[in-house]
């Protein structure tokens, strides 16, 4: 694991996620809802670096993002699970690099993250369902749209850094 972590600048790119979450750039929103930046970073990382590294990266990102947000609801379970799953996909099958595949995986990832948040909210009696569904749908669609260009670029950069890259 962690061929990428030997290159510290690769790991440092994870700092972009909380930065983008806080900056919340207006042009990259759909109906006022930003994309799931964590999903867009975690997907290529896990595909390149494997399940353990992906799960740990998901855990780390989840910890940071939970610290930035209000309330007891957590992104950690979904992000860690996605990191592990995407890492397995990257290890077992042929290299995933097509735009459609990346978009589909990001869509599933964003849907899972949003779904886990809604589920936790329902269990704790928090959010009303209708606004939550609006946010879930907008974020999932926007993340899937942004994934092909952003994740392809990250995959390209990071696979070049890894000696054991599969491309």
């Amino acid at each position, binding site marked *: 694991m962690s061929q990428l972590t030997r290159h510290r600048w690769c790991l440092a790119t994870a700092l972009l996620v909380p930065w983008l*979450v*806080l*900056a*919340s750039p207006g042009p990259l*929103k759909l*109906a*006022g*809802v*930003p994309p799931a930046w964590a999903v867009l970073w975690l997907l290529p990382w896990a595909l390149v670096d494997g399940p353990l590294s992906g799960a740990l990266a998901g855990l780390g990102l989840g910890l940071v993002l939970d610290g*930035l*947000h*209000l*309330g007891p*609801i957590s992104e950690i379970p979904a992000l860690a699970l996605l990191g592990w799953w995407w890492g397995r996909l990257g290890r077992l099958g042929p290299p995933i690099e097509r735009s459609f595949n990346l978009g589909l995986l990001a869509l599933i990832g964003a849907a899972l993250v*949003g779904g886990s*948040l809604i589920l936790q*909210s329902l269990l704790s009696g*928090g*959010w*009303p369902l209708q*606004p*939550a569904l609006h*946010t879930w749908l907008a*974020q999932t669609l926007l993340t899937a749209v942004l994934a092909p260009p952003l994740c392809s670029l990250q995959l390209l950069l990071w696979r070049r850094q890894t000696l054991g890259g599969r491309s």
Partner: protein
Amino acid sequence: MPPGRRNRLPALGGIVQAWPWVLLVLALVAVRLSKGAGFSDAYALLSRPFWPGSAQGEWLRSAEILNSQTRLSQLEGDNRRLRSLLKLQQGSPGLVSAPVISRQPGGWWQQLVIGSGELQGVGPGLTVIAPGGLIGRVASVTPSTATVALLTDPGSRVGVWVSRIQRHGLLTGIGTSRPVLRFLEKDPGVRPGDVVVTSPASTLVPPNLTVGVIQSVDERSVPATDAVVQLSAPLEAVDWVQVIVP
């Protein structure tokens, strides 16, 4: 030389006939070398009757005046805004001014991050106001920042008061840009346009802070009437806030 062929020289008549073409080529070369001299002058001479005259000059002058007026109004607006910010920054006792450094009014969490924290005396639970009225309460603090849970956050509950009908209600965030005001009784007589302020009975926020106006009323809601409230502080545009410290 093979027999039967004669040595032929160019005819003098041919050369005489070709000299205009030679002159034309030389003229074009001169035009090329002089960057269009002659052509431009000829165009200027021919188009002179259609050059911009007094009417066009008036148009230009009026456009310049319009441009100046627009700039003037923009500068006046900037001046007013900066003066208000200066006033905000000077503040009054019990108020800590802070810039908004992160804004997330959409998405899963409805929150702001402001640039003042524990070191400036900001603590959890304190009331946050902006130009326009109440916007939320401090939810968490770091040494130099604080996270503000907006009134639109689903976890937000604030007691409010509609002065025209003398009724209390509970302002509840639902994750959209407009929170819902839940009254305690059916048919309280509220109508769109009524002003909502913080409740004099509230222990969470100071009394009589402006919150917003009633936008629509749902009389059929059970067990009591609901109303959608348009907040008076523009959450999307606010760039400085004040935290009311005890």
